[in-house]
């Protein structure tokens, strides 16, 4: 929708049909298609028979999209950028940029989705019912709810909803203009708002989480939108490349630009959960059904971070000396706050939420470095590639950790209070061992993926000249390590305080596979990160 000519009523141009590169955008279409098929299934199949077909459609869709993504990634063309070469091209009339980082993000989003689907489809933990409420319309504790449980009702709409959210994330990661970005943001958010409120147990907090997420999400996206409007006002276009031209030319109204940058940043900060825009994170992570939390934690963060990077590196790259210090400060605040507040948490999900805040801070460290590589030194880790790698590791570990949360239960459902986790190491060495592994990965201990991730973002920051930020980062890592380690202490070294320890419900094979796969990936990314790092590195720069 870039248009430069002044249009008048008498001078109507030929409206050419937009060129749509179906081959490149295939994965998004596949996901959207699968979601639509899911809706159709909702309409045509009787209630009791929807579950398996829905799962099937979703899994097939995601797997197919993943295969297509691999194909797309391999077929991306190399483009010579200013400093570092990129791969890919702008598609859909400039609305999307199907480039290396974007497609890489698709890949990890689809993997996260596949893993999360395993948790969505888990039915053994709740006596044959899905972890979502049977009938959302019933008030918690009402007779209707009991009746729904009795009847074995399930909301199978969660699968299409999740696929829509996934498609939003994929679009968000590749959106090349601000309006597409806004729409994608809403497409990814709206289904998530709903999903957050659908927990089977503890519905009150689930609904509260949905309300908070919705109100705050809407509030923050308005900031983003207003920022987009100002950016448009500054440059006359929503396209990132065009904005970049205007920024680099330093033509327009500088305060306008700064305001645009600030407001867009606010929307992004909110989505990635950076302080002081993070306050929704703990509440929503805790209240939402755990499978949704897992998906959200991994997916939203990845999509939002890449979109964030894209806007700032592509559109506002010319003004980086203006925004880098701010990112710098926000990174420190986020890291410190996330790590510090985690220490005092007593709820596993809440602790993981604050940990995700801390990780947002670490990611921002790599961002603040804004190292985009230099010609002739292509192998050197850049901000983008380090963040891509970090997101991969963080997402996989997060999903694994939340998956374990779904399994540790007592009579009231998930036993998320930390004290209930005491002695888990004896109860179930496998689960406790995996959880410990995820914690060590979060803490950045070598031989786990988290370590390589930390290494990457710190090296990007240092390459960008911000070594003091690296020092702050490592010190905060030590604080963060403290609460991860505390969980290990609890699981392995502490004996349960009250007589009945945590019951580890026997999950279905799906959840076990998800946990094992996450753990394997976490270790693999730590031991032989080469291939993934290589992919991330060869994703190259953003294509504009």
């Amino acid at each position, binding site marked *: 929708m870039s248009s430069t000519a002044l249009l008048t009523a008498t001078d109507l141009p030929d409206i050419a049909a937009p060129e749509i590169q179906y081959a490149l955008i295939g994965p998004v279409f596949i996901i959207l298609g699968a979601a639509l098929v899911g809706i159709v299934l909702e309409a045509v199949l009787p209630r009791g028979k929807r579950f398996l077909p829905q799962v099937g459609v979703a899994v097939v869709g995601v797997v197919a999209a993943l295969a297509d993504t691999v194909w797309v990634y391999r077929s991306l063309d190399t483009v010579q950028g200013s400093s570092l070469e990129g791969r890919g091209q702008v598609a859909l009339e400039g609305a999307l940029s199907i480039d290396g980082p974007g497609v890489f993000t698709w890949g990890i989003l689809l993997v996260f989705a596949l893993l999360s689907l395993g948790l969505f489809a888990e039915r053994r933990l709740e006596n044959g019912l899905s972890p979502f409420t049977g009938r959302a319309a019933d008030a918690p504790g009402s007779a209707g709810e009991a009746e729904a449980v009795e009847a074995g009702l399930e909301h199978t709409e969660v699968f299409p909803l999740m696929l829509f959210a996934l498609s939003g994330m994929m679009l968000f990661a590749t959106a090349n203009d601000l309006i597409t970005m806004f729409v994608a943001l809403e497409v990814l958010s709206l289904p998530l708002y709903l999903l957050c409120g659908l927990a089977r147990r503890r519905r009150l907090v689930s609904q509260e989480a949905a*309300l908070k997420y919705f109100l705050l999400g809407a509030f923050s996206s308005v900031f983003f939108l207003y920022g987009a409007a100002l950016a448009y006002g500054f440059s006359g276009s929503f396209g990132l490349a065009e904005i970049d031209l205007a920024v680099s030319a330093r033509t327009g109204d500088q305060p306008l630009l700064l305001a645009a940058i600030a407001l867009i940043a606010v929307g992004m900060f909110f989505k990635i959960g950076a302080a002081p825009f993070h306050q929704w994170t703990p509440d929503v992570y805790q209240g939402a059904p755990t499978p949704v939390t897992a998906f959200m934690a991994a997916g939203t963060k990845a999509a939002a971070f890449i979109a964030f990077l894209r806007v700032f590196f592509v559109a506002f790259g010319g003004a980086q000396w203006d*925004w880098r210090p701010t990112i710098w400060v926000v990174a420190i605040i986020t890291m410190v706050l996330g790590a510090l507040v985690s220490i005092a948490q007593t709820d596993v999900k809440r602790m993981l939420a604050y940990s995700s805040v801390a990780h947002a801070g670490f990611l921002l460290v790599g961002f603040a470095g804004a190292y985009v590589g230099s010609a002739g030194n292509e192998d050197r880790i850049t901000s983008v590639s380090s963040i891509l790698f970090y997101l991969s590791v963080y997402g996989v570990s997060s999903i694994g950790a939340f998956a374990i949360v779904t399994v540790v239960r007592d009579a009231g459902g998930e036993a998320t209070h930390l004290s209930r986790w005491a002695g888990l190491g004896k109860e179930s060495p496998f689960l406790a061992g995996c959880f410990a592994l995820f914690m060590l990965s979060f803490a950045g201990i070598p031989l786990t993926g988290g370590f390589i991730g930390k290494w990457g973002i710190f090296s990007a920051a240092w390459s960008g000249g911000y070594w003091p930020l690296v020092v702050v980062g490592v010190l905060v890592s030590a604080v963060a390590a403290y609460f991860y380690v505390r969980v290990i202490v609890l699981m392995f070294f502490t004996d349960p305080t009250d007589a009945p320890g945590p019951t580890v419900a026997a999950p279905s094979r799906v959840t076990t596979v998800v946990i094992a796969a996450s753990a394997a990936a976490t270790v693999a990314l730590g031991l032989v990160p080469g291939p993934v790092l290589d992919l991330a590195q060869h994703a190259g720069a953003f294509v504009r």
Partner: protein
Amino acid sequence: MLDLVWLLVAIPLVSGLGLLVWGKEADAWGHLVATVASAASFVLGVVAFIELAGRDADDRSVTHVLFTWIEAGPFHVDMAYHYDPLAALFVLLITGVGTLIHVYSIGYMAHDERRRRFFCFLNIFVAAMLTLVLAADYLVIFLGWEGVGLASYLLIGFWQHKPSAAAAAKKAFVVNRVGDLGMALAIMLMFAQLGTTDIASVNASIGSASTSVATAMGLLLLLGACGKSAQVPLQSWLLDAMEGPTPVSALIHAATMVTAGVYLVVRSNGIFDASEAARTAVVVVGLVTLLVGAWIGCAKDDIKKALAGSTMSQIGYMMLAAGLGPAGYAFAIFHLITHGFFKANMFLGAGSVMHAMDDDVDMRHYGALRTSLPITFATFALGYLAIIGFPGFSGFFSKDKIIEAAFGYNVWVGLGTLLGAGVTAFYMTRLMMMTFFGEKRWRDEVHPHESPLVMTIPLMVLGAASLLGGALLAGDWIVDWLEPVVGHTEHHELAIPALAMSAIIVAVVAVGATLAYLTYGRRPVADVAPLDSQVRWPVRAGRHEMYGNEINEALVVRPVQHTTRTLVFLDGRGIDGFVTGLADRLGEASQALRKPQNGLVRSYALGIFAGATLVLVALLAVTLA
């Protein structure tokens, strides 16, 4: 044979360690093996001595490298021995007296269930002491030096169940370590300055280094010597060391180990020759110790402690002589050897007395023992006459020479040594009187009886040596013998003829002895010691060992204890407290930061709004700045 000198060390070492590891089966015969080992060393020592003596005067030195001990970069230490006239004399003294004391101990320790271990330690001591005197490198000396310290530690604390013995052993080791500090630093200084720690090279080339280096080296070595030889200010351990079995006191704390300091000074003659200041320090230390030791000897009622004070004093003589430089080295060694005979003799005699008196050491409980213990008395008397310098006895010759040399050095020093001789006569006479003469003051159920032959034969041998040891000086033999090691002795011409000097000395000795006889021989001796408050200050000071322990306590022990307690406290509260405090602060900060997370959507929205404003302001600020 001279290539096999290492066997001197190896035989007792193997015997000692072997018996230690062998275990209980060796209890029955272990002591015999140990004694034979020591005797074998003595025989070898004699053979080696004869061979050495058979050589030309300027060929009487053998250096033999066994293996390289330490080599790294420029640091090179050979495990080597250096057998020369000085070492040869020491070898004979150590193995000779050592063997006698082994024999004596067979009887003395007959009823101790841990006798085998005692003999093991004795063997180890002999090996270490021989290492010390045979070493060709200062670091190897240090090996023997600390080795004898270990043996001394083990033997003083042999009766570990007595807390006083354990404490005395610990004290001896720690005080010696202070001396060793000096010795270690001296060796480091040698390495830094000269690039070698070989004794011969160091002493040969120290002249080319500056005098201040030589002085520093000499003073540091002196510190080491003070520790080992119980010289002021590191004297305090020796009297406590009497907690050990009496043969140990005789061998280690009288005849051999405590004289190692003198050996060190004489062996390092090159260094001391190069520094007047260091020599003066040695003289001062020797003189002060000589007088302090004598003083203590006068006041003690414990027979072993009185003898220990005497030992200090006599070593003071030797030290002083060594400090006189080439004029005194040979006399220091001469006195060292005669002292080794008569003091070992007297200690063993004291042991025999204690044996008779059920291990009572208080002389006030003795008296009139000359009839009950005739052999002990006779041999003890020989030692007594030797130490006070009765003409014709060994001590007469050796002490005479030192006093003469001291007068040649400085009149005041000479007077000091002369006074010392008088006091020596006093306290030794006192000891004789209280022990063997006067009234019986025995406690009930004590029935003194002469010791068995296995104990008295060594006494007789040593008694004979005390009498005849002076023969070493015949024709200035010892001076000539040591000349290749310590250099030529210049003769000081005294203001008065030597014979007159001797007469004066004998007179002073007579006065001292007479005074003691009048006080303790003629008058009855109280069988309970008068309280501190009832005696005059010189006695009180002597009894309290010149307040050496109190001084150490105030200057060293309590400050260290205080520092230790403070540091332990600071370590916990300060350094660790800082760290744990930091952790606590983080916890508090965590709690505080939770407050804004109040669960209210509107306040979260406010956070977003405020954050947005802040980001905007920050961006503007950056741009404007």
